[in-house]
């Protein structure tokens, strides 16, 4: 079973800094890692490869501004067990999920696969839209929020996570696309030496212009403003030295906990 895993490099964000134009996140001091649910999608692909054979190809669409972190993400994927890595690069343009889905769909038309996996949601823009749009573009059956995948012949039996702890079971044939929920497996941490060795392996680089002539024309949703939500200022934030904080907190807890 040949599996494509779509991954995204997302930043670890504490204090957000906005660029001067008020539209973008200042990423100059941010470190990017593989989006959390994508790590579960990659692990699931590698587990399936180990069981059934085939190849795992990691594909990412990334701004060349964060090239180093994106390269590291691919090398780490190799160290975990991915066979090939592809970076579709862009620079200096804003892409919405529609443009991204079209670019990735067109790229996927050029390679052979049985299954496409990706994380159910990204920690940055949280659209949860890319996988569904790609599946519709490529006319693949899809389902989302998958918490278990079993293969029987050419048919997958998948479990979807619903609300309130309920689950829905579906049968879905290959080829298809699944978005993966966190917790489906335990992603492996490759030893450092494996990551170092992986750095000598090639990464395939594709420019979006090689795929689509005018990617800007595909953008339907344009960001006009990025900002920090106005604080509702509800919390009374306690101040002080650690011992002092513990004493204050204990007093508050004693005051509200029923006896």
């Amino acid at each position, binding site marked *: 079973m040949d599996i494509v895993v779509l991954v995204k490099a997302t930043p670890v964000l504490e204090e957000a800094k906005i660029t001067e134009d008020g539209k973008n996140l200042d990423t100059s001091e941010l470190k990017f890692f593989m989006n959390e649910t994508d790590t579960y999608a990659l692990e699931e692909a590698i587990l399936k490869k180990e069981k059934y054979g085939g190849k795992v190809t990691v594909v990412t669409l990334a701004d060349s501004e964060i090239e180093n972190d994106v390269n590291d993400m691919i090398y780490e994927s190799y160290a975990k067990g991915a066979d090939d890595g592809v970076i579709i690069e862009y620079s200096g343009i804003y892409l919405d999920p529609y443009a991204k889905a079209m670019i990735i769909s067109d790229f996927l038309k050029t390679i052979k696969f049985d299954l496409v996996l990706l994380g159910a949601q990204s920690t940055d*823009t949280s659209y949860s839209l890319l996988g569904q749009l790609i599946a519709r573009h490529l006319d693949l059956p899809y*389902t989302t929020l998958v918490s278990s995948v079993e293969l029987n012949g050419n048919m997958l039996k998948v479990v979807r996570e619903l609300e309130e702890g309920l689950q829905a079971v*579906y049968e879905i044939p290959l080829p298809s696309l699944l978005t993966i929920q966190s917790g489906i497996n335990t992603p492996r941490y490759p030893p450092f030496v494996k990551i170092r060795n992986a750095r000598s392996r090639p990464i395939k680089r594709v420019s979006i212009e090689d795929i689509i002539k005018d990617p800007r024309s595909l953008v339907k949703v344009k960001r006009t403003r990025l900002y920090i939500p106005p604080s509702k200022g*509800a919390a009374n934030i306690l101040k002080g030295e650690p011992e002092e904080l513990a004493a204050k907190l204990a007093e*508050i807890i004693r005051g509200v906990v029923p006896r």
Partner: protein
Amino acid sequence: MEIVCIGEIFNNDVSGPTYEAIYLGNELKREYGGKLTLIIAGKDLEKYSAKLSIQGVDSIILLDHPSLELYEQVAYTKAIAGEIRAISPQIVIAPYTSQGMDLLPSIAHEIGYTLVTYCQSLKFTGNGWIATRVIYGGKLLEDVEVDDKNIAVTIRPGDFPQLKQETGSTSVLKKSPEIAQGKMRPVGIVKPALEDIDITKYDVLVSVGRGIGSKENLEMADELAKILNGALACSRPIVDMGWLPKTRQVGSSAKTVKPKVYIALGISGATNHINGMKNSNTIISVNKDPYAPIFEISHYGVVADINDLLPLLLEELKK
């Protein structure tokens, strides 16, 4: 303005977020005038008619068919998209639930509308829409512009009130739609049986998140829970890592809790988690990230590493 809301039946009832979609639909109706139609697909839907006939809903279309009992995206897409085409609304609103996040992209694709997910508010400009979206786990908002008069949106459950004032005067149209056959087949709904305590029954919950750092540190949090006659709960990453069973998870995809005291330790406050605990009487949060969204809904906050603070706190409480 023609407004369509897509409702849903979950676990043999109208889902709470359905009412939130209707609430937003009503707000738009008040602002721009027009008519609000609610569409629901499923099986044996007539019994929900009264519950759905609420203030502001002008008409309800029940797409009723035995094959629609279980959610299946292809059949649901074709049936609902057919009705939307006939109405030709300017906006389609659905909750961002397990069903909505799966279905709306497919419907939007089918009818050629631009979908904006995770919206918090909407403005019609005359030529298009401006939507405010919540991103980076609630740390940032973005305004996005859609140069299209017709859009589809999903909204975050928990962002809007669930008003359920029944009027009984809404026109209800029941239809038996044609069923499109997809390649996928729904098999059934299961509820995994897990034997554990019921965290919704406790007055005090000590809840841990990723910030706890290691499984060993759970012991301190458990000790705190025991001192306070409470129970140990957690956010999603703790279950994902296998440190606590799913029965302890607080959030809209797990358990919704409302204890007298909720102590959040090392929980950043993802939407899903916040929706599962924000109605607790007193919320006390400890997180080393001063920008963690959990502080926004807390009554008391401490910016600290819980693993430094917990031993001191336990000592104080034992005094």
